[in-house]
């Protein structure tokens, strides 16, 4: 190993780590607000990457069908729930809006030739298709059992993940896909060559992290989410509805996942089932952050990226083992430092 190789490995590790960091942040966000361990987080990444690829390959975008289907289910559930609760007809505004979004993305996805429209339109449409999946998944699968023990929530999350993978195979097919890079340029920095797409990944991740930080510190919605994460009951007493908090955190998670998918799709081949391993590494980062600290989790995720990159160089056969072994010292250190923790179940 010489300096050049180390530099390139480091660069590779930072690129992966940036994505893992984004996923770690959204996993912590959803977990702290709703207690759901968001196993399907990786699916947002793969769905958006594959949607981009479908558009660039001139194929119709069929993911909208899933959005519309879930939106219709959410609408029915809202109407039924309101009847039971208030014995009256209440306009289910959110789910009606989502049904409208579903209709639009199905219509546009099947008719508009996005391959001729340029990348900005493709990105916009991908976000419009993938992001609504976040609140919809929350409404349909998690909201009815929001008060269940976290183990039940975890099992439902795994079930949703498995179902989404099956849906992904149906919608996108078994083939891997990659998309065109935002720009082809290669920057030579001393001995290292840096592909500009790598800079995009790092730049977008950094921007998104800063934007999230501002959102939580400054905006009212962000503060409400923080309150809900800090003390669910207290937040409810001051008027922050748990449904709102859950929906918003899942929307953010879907947005983060979709953006990650769009930026990584040009540098790797994404399959319908690639999401799990990607989000699993995000989990490792999230656990290093003790499922609560965004900044520690982001640093942890960068560490995961570096470990992965360098361990692959030394022993490619064992790289996953080495990466997941990182958990052991972290868990040990955490439990030694904290002593016994009271179980909230």
């Amino acid at each position: 190993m010489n300096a050049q190789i180390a530099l390139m490995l480091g660069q590779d590790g930072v690129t992966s780590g940036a994505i893992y960091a984004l996923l770690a942040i959204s996993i912590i966000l959803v977990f702290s607000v709703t207690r759901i361990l968001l196993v399907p987080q990786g699916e947002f990444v793969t769905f958006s990457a594959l949607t981009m690829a479908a558009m660039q390959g001139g194929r119709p975008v069929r993911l909208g069908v899933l959005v519309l289907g879930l939106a219709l289910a959410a609408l029915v559930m809202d109407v039924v729930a309101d009847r039971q609760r208030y014995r009256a007809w209440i306009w289910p505004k959110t789910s009606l809006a989502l049904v409208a979004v579903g209709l639009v993305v199905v219509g546009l996805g099947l008719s508009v030739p996005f391959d001729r429209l340029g990348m900005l339109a493709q990105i916009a449409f991908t976000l419009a298709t993938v992001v609504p999946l976040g609140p919809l998944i929350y409404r349909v699968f998690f909201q009815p059992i929001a008060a269940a023990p976290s183990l039940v929530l975890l099992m439902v999350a795994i079930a949703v993940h498995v179902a989404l993978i099956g849906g992904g195979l149906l919608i996108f097919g078994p083939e891997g896909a990659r998309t065109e890079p935002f720009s082809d340029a290669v920057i030579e920095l001393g001995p290292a060559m840096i592909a500009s797409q790598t800079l995009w990944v790092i730049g977008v991740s950094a921007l998104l992290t800063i934007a999230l930080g501002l959102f939580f510190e400054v905006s009212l919605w962000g503060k409400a989410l923080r309150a809900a994460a800090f003390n669910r009951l207290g937040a409810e007493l001051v008027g922050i509805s748990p449904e709102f908090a859950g929906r918003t955190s899942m929307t953010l998670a879907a947005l983060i996942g979709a953006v990650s998918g769009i930026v990584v799709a040009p540098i790797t081949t994404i399959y319908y089932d690639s999401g799990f391993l990607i989000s699993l590494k995000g989990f490792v980062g999230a656990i290093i952050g003790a499922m609560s600290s965004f900044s520690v989790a982001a640093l942890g995720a960068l560490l995961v990226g570096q470990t992965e990159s360098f361990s692959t160089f030394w022993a490619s056969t064992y790289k996953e083992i080495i990466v997941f072994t990182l958990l052991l010292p972290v868990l040990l250190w955490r439990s030694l430092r904290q002593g016994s923790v009271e179980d909230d179940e």
Partner: protein
Amino acid sequence: MLALKSVPLSLAVVLTLATSAVAGVKIGVVTSASGPIALVGIPQKNTVPLLPKTAGGETIEYISLDDASDPSATVTVFKKLVLEEKVDAIIGPSGSPNALGIIGFVAENGVAVLAPVGSASAVLPMDDKKKWIFKTTQNDGLVADLLVGQMVKTGVKTVGFIGTSDSYGDTWSKALQEAAKAKGLTVVAQERFTRQDTSLVAQGLKIVSKSPDAVLVGAPGSSSVLPETTLVDVGYKGKIYQTHGAALQDFLKLGGKKVEGTILAGSGMLVLDEIPDTNPAKKIAVDYIAGYEKLYGVKPATFGANVLDAGLLLENAIPAALKVGKPGTREFRAALRDALEATKELTGAQGVYNMTPEDHSGFDRRGLELLTVSGGQFHLLK
């Protein structure tokens, strides 16, 4: 057996060509049309409607099932086909691990299996159980010899290997080492990856640091693309070789300009325009591709042709077996196996089959071509 009948099978049962209740020959087809190796299984499943419909005056009924790429589900599906449906032979499964898991069961029940799998370990070394298995793909050793032969011819002394960390990569790592040893090449780097890996930069750098004259990528389907594009990205300048696992249109589509100049071995099906008309396999392949395109609007991957060839082998063997017994009996099944083993000079879409008791793959060099990529297309290597 009664207990088995009551086992609720959650697998989707697709009855294709359920022509009538007439007792013809029953053939089971098991493919991995969903799950991780669906890209192999889907063209195979889609080929079923194109298989021969009669042989020796008997109708052939195909019962097509999906094993979801899961070796234990494969066993369940095989049990259902053999014990409940009483099939006379089975085409499938799609994956090598899946095939290795059912050898004991089919040998016990005396059902011949035509497996369109890559790994030669399904039929080699031949023994009392494996004699029930036939394989409709080229053995890896044959392909490895051809590729290594080309390396030696172009003056390659050292070679690096990057393959998937599954049985496909294992088999190829072994096949390369054996062929390289025989021809005096040195394997200087051995790297592994999994299909879902998002970055192979580390493996690429490791290989480049050993500076081999050529690199062989041992990966099936679209997972063969990322190692090659990564090697190009990290500045590898030597020749890159691919196995027949990369011989797919998707390889060109995903790889784009970065896979130009790749050398691979594959069936002539990919370069039909350049194959002389005298090649007997050409007509069958042309007809197959046309029929498949008419049904599905896309060209089939070569995996589909492996199933077609299995159908042709059966069509050829059924008349001889009918002389011995009636379909649905143990005698018929045993005679069918013997007839398959006696196949001589049968032309399929992939080449010409000559089975012997020792060789249940039956291919020779005729089915195999050295290909290269130029101008975004496969071409014969000149």
